[in-house]
């Protein structure tokens, strides 16, 4: 049998790395910036401090990696959720283009935003 090998492994690798990065980094970041600071449990860092941390090239690189991987993680998972949850397997190609395309566009935007911060 000569089934053509699919691009799935690469999508899956991105999905997996994204899943790992998201699991390791997002909870703490979201907890701090989404809940703790807004609720005032701790006072948010000053602009200067945060700007110093955020504009550091290493930070930007890490954040860029996180954004790209997390977006592709989303794209992959969401694509299957649409297939299965909404039984849209017939629309598979369109969904795939929309999801991965969305992640790619998102990545470009992320690059733009992050470079601007440099």
């Amino acid at each position, binding site marked *: 049998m000569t089934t053509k090998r699919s691009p799935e492994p690469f999508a899956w690798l991105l999905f997996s790395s994204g899943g790992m990065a998201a699991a390791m980094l997002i909870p703490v*970041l979201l907890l701090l910036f989404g809940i703790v600071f807004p609720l005032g449990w701790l006072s948010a*860092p000053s602009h200067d401090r945060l700007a110093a*941390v955020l504009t550091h090239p290493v930070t930007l690189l890490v954040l860029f990696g996180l954004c790209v991987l997390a977006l592709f993680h989303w794209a992959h998972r969401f694509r299957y959720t649409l297939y299965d949850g909404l039984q849209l397997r017939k629309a598979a190609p369109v969904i795939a283009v929309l999801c991965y395309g969305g992640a790619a566009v998102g990545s470009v935007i992320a690059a733009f*935003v992050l470079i601007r911060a440099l």
Partner: protein
Amino acid sequence: MTTADRRYHHPVSFTWWARKPSYLLFVLRELSSVFVAWFVVYLLLLVAAVSSGNESYQGFLEWSSHPLMIALNVIAFAFVLLHAVTWFGLAPKAIVLRLGSWRVPPNLILAAHYGAWLVISVAVAWVILR
């Protein structure tokens, strides 16, 4: 040989995922990805705000403490935790580590993931709060 197909095919219901708690949990886990994506958006907004000066940063802080925003982020946080926990639970299934002829027991792999999670979280918090 086969007479006409008189087999009964159960239609898959549109709400199949509500049939069992485990299926529901699965769908919720998959939906966590939406909140992962939401976080990326949120993060980029934060970065953009910070890089355009203190004023817009303060604006961001204000926006983020709107009750609706907080509610959304609490939900997002719950989903992201669900993601993390299920993700780590899955890791020992994919990874089989062998040191010499010793196979690292799955529980150890699991524990290592949680350990790393803790270390990374503390480090990130330290960098931000220092």
